[in-house]
């Protein structure tokens, strides 16, 4: 009993770092030991949340998969049998409109991700290297639109871009276009859908790039300049390569949600600019859930593949942020 109590005291002291010297170094890692002692079996607490996620994420995905191969049907009394017909027509059918829609969506998503990341980099760079003391305040300003409803922001863009909207009015007022003129691609176009997605994601992409720039070892930059590198050379040889994990993380942050986007085209897209997510949405308003499930499953598989390719960059970013927390 005595020994145990004193053991406790040593651990406690070691943990707080109050004791120095021989006594404190005798013991094992304080956190680990104490973790074993005072909270036995608390790992079991993950079970209820896991069950919840299993029921509401895994079960729906399994049902989507079953519907996509015809093993279930939403039509009462309909025959169910395993069939890859819907998959075959989606993947290989001649001029399948949904496959075309999928590739159109992926092109838009890729374009938006690249442009967004490119536009966000200078913002992150400005915050980290120019706006030194005010950087967190300015970051908060940059992120302010995120505090507001996504639907409202898209609605605001519809109000700005429509044929009698603010942008058209401004263009007419300064004489860019005639008084009764319109710019045909301003709304209900690939441009308007891409613009709103770009608008939505830029502040968000700034975050991981900013985090990487902040956690960068600035001595490397000083060393490069001490050795005679120009500012330009230092940027391209040191800063940019070191910030790539943040850039890729930001890119993925846009690419993944944009792949499944469907709200923006509802407001500012025309019939030709609806994205893959809109196709899925439309199917579940009708009766053909089986074909709709093929599309929903294709989207999930696409996102999982993207995560497998890019996931490790997201981890890098999380580690960097966690490291910043501890210092």
């Amino acid at each position, binding site marked *: 009993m005595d020994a145990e109590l004193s053991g406790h005291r040593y651990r406690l002291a070691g943990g707080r770092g109050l004791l120095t010297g021989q006594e404190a170094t005798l013991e094992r890692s304080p956190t680990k030991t104490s973790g074993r002692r005072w909270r036995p079996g608390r790992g079991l607490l993950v079970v209820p949340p896991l069950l919840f996620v299993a029921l509401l994420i895994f079960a729906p995905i399994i049902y989507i998969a079953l519907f996509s191969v015809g093993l279930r049907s939403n039509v009462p009394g309909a025959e169910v049998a395993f069939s890859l017909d819907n998959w075959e027509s989606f993947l290989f059918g001649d001029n399948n409109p949904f496959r075309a829609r999928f590739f159109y969506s992926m092109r838009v998503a890729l374009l938006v991700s690249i442009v967004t990341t490119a536009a966000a980099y200078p913002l992150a760079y400005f915050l980290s290297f*120019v706006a030194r003391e005010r950087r967190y305040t300015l970051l908060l300003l940059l992120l302010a639109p*995120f505090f507001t409803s996504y639907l409202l922001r898209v609605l605001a863009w519809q109000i700005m871009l429509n044929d009698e909207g603010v942008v058209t009015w401004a263009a007419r007022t300064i004489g860019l276009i005639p008084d009764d003129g319109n710019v045909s691609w301003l709304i209900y176009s690939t441009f308007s859908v891409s613009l709103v997605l770009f608008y939505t994601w830029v502040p968000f992409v700034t975050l991981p790039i900013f985090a990487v720039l902040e956690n960068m070892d600035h001595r490397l930059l000083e060393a490069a300049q001490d050795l005679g590198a120009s500012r330009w050379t230092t940027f391209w040889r040191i800063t940019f390569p070191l910030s790539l994990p943040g850039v890729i993380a930001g890119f993925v942050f846009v690419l993944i949600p944009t792949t499944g986007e469907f709200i923006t085209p509802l407001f500012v897209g025309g019939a030709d600019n609806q994205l893959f997510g809109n196709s899925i949405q439309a199917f579940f308003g009708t009766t053909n859930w089986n074909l709709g499930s093929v599309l929903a499953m294709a989207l999930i598989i696409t996102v999982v593949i993207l995560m497998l390719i890019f996931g490790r960059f997201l981890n890098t970013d999380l580690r960097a942020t966690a490291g910043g927390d501890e210092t």
Partner: protein
Amino acid sequence: MRTGGLVVKALLSAYFWLFLAFLLAPLVVLVVFAFNDSTTATLPLEGLTTSWFSEAFTNGQLTNALVRSATIAVFAAIIATILGLMASVGLTSDRLRLRSLTVASLMLPLVVPYISLAVGLVILLQALAVQTSLTAVVLGHVVIALPFAILVLLPRLRTLDPSMNEAARDLGASDLTAFRLITLPLLGPALVSSFLISFVTSFDEFAIASFLAPSGQPTYPVFLYASSRTPALLPQVIAIGTLVIAFSMALVLAAEGGRRWAEKRLVGAEEFADEVSEENLAEGLVMVAKS
């Protein structure tokens, strides 16, 4: 880097401030049209009025949708925070097996597209022969809010000094008592953050609600979408939208301010770095933005 290059600095500054204007422009436009004395949202302005606000508040469908969304969000946020707390405490266990699989499963809702999740839930309800309902919306929102709750709570839990809990145990407290009297109060600010982030996620969510809310009971985003198609309703929707924007900004900023104030008091100044808290905020925003 930090010293020279005035031209580069000036260009970067100009770019930043112009971009900020671009980001805030749509919000400003909404606010302006909320007070415009016209049934159409077009320039030039016709005059100032506050009548859209009074009309909006007497529109029962609109106010009902707001109350409905707020109620759903409160329930979703409470459940998500409780489940998130359980998951986070569990994940700090040294003896947890299959840790990466567990984390991956809990984080999965972050990457599954909401539209796929929404139709999957529709199918699941049909398979279980359960009617769509607001309860189903709450459960769907808990799923998507859970990763955010964990991402807020887990880092905070990890930074807690284990020796405080040990001290409580040495003084005779049981595991549960130590948790209740030491860990929980220290987690307080993070619990509030988790609640708020979950609340905002649910309040703004459209995909799941549009499929699972029964047709006579739209949530606020569902109602907003439907009425944006009705020109006569648009000015009211904009007016309420302005209030929602102001309210959510005030809420999150107040919560962040409060959390920092509380952490300063609780953790003690020497363990508190402004930047740490700012980075936590940034992390939190990463999550909010996903919605």
